[in-house]
């Protein structure tokens, strides 16, 4: 029977030859992950079960959301997780200064490998599909049971085939591709389903593009967002993953529930307007939308390539007088590399704030909360009402190209407009 990537990975971890969409399976997990918001309640539930952790090497506890602690209660949350990690000798617990944003560092550290089955108490756990891992977000209780048993139940999802063709223009990146897709299928367009990316254009997408695309699949309701294992994936994992792994590519006649065609050559830079990620419009149709803040970072777009795009636009330019531009490298390695490339100099000379790695403003935690009536162009992943602060503030989701250009002009803009203003 021909299988999708999702069916193959779930069958492998259920100890079955094959599974089909709709089937309920109980699977062995390769990694169980939580952060400082979801970890502490999961630990409390875990303690009710009365068993030891299933495997201290297969658990990752990442204090990234409200850390370094933004207030006393957040410091208490970090302390619950820290104590649990020490007591149980959790291998993948990282302290401030060594930690970064969970979905940035777990691939970067080589903890996530192709073919793995991962649950994370964070909805953006689907990011790891870029590396050909079946990874999905769960809540506190599923995580607690995962910590104790190393198992989780799954309903095998149907997969939507996202077929990519055409040549990707230079001003288009992963963010435009996923926003266009979400705009097309809607915020519940992939509910209970997996997305699987196919087609000749997949090869043009860098790992950064893929991580951004898989990251935001949850914004269409998807359970997982899987890329095939190809040369790009092979190169990425070669210098990071130390353990042996298996990869899973789809069979030729795999059964998809539907197909969405995207011709990359036809894509335009887009923005998701408030207050849903599927409210997507091309930037050139927006008119003048003045802004107060720009955020460049997050598990969606806080990687080196993203900072490089921003640096290319901000080099020798200034952030607009009415704008705060906050730049957040996703990991210490990315931060160091950005220093080595002199991009941090460029950001500071342009008048940006540069922060340590944190989820901070993306979820309205800290480090850039919006006041009533303020507008932010952000490379993050959600623009729900009140997401980044006051209930009457607005978040516009965009690529680092658009975010950096908007920081310079003080309104939503493209890099071409920045150059046009100067000529």
């Amino acid at each position, binding site marked *: 029977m021909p299988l999708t990537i999702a069916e193959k990975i779930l069958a492998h971890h259920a100890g079955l030859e094959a599974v089909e969409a709709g089937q*309920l399976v109980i699977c062995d997990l390769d990694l169980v992950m939580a952060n400082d*918001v*979801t970890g*502490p*309640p999961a630990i*409390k*539930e875990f303690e*009710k*079960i*009365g*068993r030891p952790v299933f495997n201290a090497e297969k658990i990752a506890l990442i204090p990234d*959301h*409200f850390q370094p602690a*933004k*207030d006393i*209660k*957040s410091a208490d*949350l970090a302390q619950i997780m820290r104590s649990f990690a020490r007591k149980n000798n959790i291998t993948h617990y990282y302290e401030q200064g060594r930690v970064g944003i969970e979905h940035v560092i777990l691939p970067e550290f080589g903890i996530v490998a192709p073919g793995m089955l991962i649950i*994370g*108490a*964070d*909805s953006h*756990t689907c990011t790891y599909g870029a590396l050909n891992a079946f990874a999905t*977000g*769960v*809540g*506190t*209780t*599923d995580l*607690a*049971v995962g910590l*104790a*048993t190393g198992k989780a*139940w799954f*309903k095998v999802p149907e997969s939507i085939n996202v077929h990519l063709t055409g040549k990707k223009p230079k001003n288009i990146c992963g963010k435009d591709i996923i926003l266009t897709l979400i705009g097309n299928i809607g*915020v*519940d367009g992939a*509910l*209970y389903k997996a997305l699987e990316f196919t087609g000749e254009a997949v090869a043009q997408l860098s790992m950064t593009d893929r991580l951004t695309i898989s990251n935001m699949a*949850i914004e269409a*309701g998807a*359970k997982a967002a899987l890329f095939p294992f190809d040369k790009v994936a092979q190169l990425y994992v070669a210098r990071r993953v130390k353990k042996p792994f298996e990869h899973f590519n789809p069979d030729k006649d795999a059964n998809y529930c539907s197909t969405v065609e995207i011709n990359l050559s036809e894509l335009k830079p887009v923005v998701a307007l408030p207050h*849903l990620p599927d409210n997507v419009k091309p930037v050139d149709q927006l008119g003048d939308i003045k802004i107060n803040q720009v955020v460049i970072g997050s598990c969606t777009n806080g990687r080196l390539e993203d900072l490089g795009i921003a640096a290319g636009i901000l080099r020798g330019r200034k952030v607009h007088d009415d704008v705060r531009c906050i730049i957040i490298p996703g990991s210490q390695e990315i931060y160091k590399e950005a220093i080595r490339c002199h991009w941090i100099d460029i950001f500071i000379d342009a008048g940006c704030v540069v922060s340590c790695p944190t989820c901070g403003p993306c*979820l*309205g*935690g800290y480090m850039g909360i919006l006041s009533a009536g303020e507008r932010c162009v952000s490379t993050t992943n*959600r623009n*729900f*009402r*009140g*997401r980044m602060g006051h*209930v009457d503030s607005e978040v516009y989701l965009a690529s680092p190209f658009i975010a950096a250009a908007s920081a310079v002009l003080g309104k939503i803009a493209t890099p071409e407009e920045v150059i046009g203003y100067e000529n």
Partner: protein
Amino acid sequence: MKIEGKVWRYGDNVDTDVIIPARYLNTFDPAELAKHCMVDIDQTFAANVKAGDIMVGGKNFGCGSSREHAPIAIKASGVPGIIAASFARIFYRNGINIGLPLLEIGDAVEKISANDVLKIDTDTGTIENLTTGDIFHAHPLPGFVQEIANAGGLINYIKAKN
């Protein structure tokens, strides 16, 4: 379980950030979370909800974050069950896992309005709108997922299997 209560009616795509905004996530105490439940779309809810009231939403209820704080906040507000056209996947699992009945009824949800009084039998999935006389049947839970719901949540289910 049999439930009878008044409806708090919301629309499509009610996200976890409005159910419980991240500024309140520095605690996971259910009573504290309940104080801020729904605040970013309905400032009247937390102060006026009564134990037994039923929440009704449209499509994709609970989309967004994986925060289990969201169904916990609703449950701790005294709401014994949620009805929606459809639920976002992680919210759906979380509801079942904490023993909060979630009933999916598709487009029939259009026939439920704010302040209607509903009578629900969560064992059979039958919903009676006492205000209009309409009767709906929720989609049944698949396989052992029903057993998790019957056990009152995943922790009880796992402990019973030990």
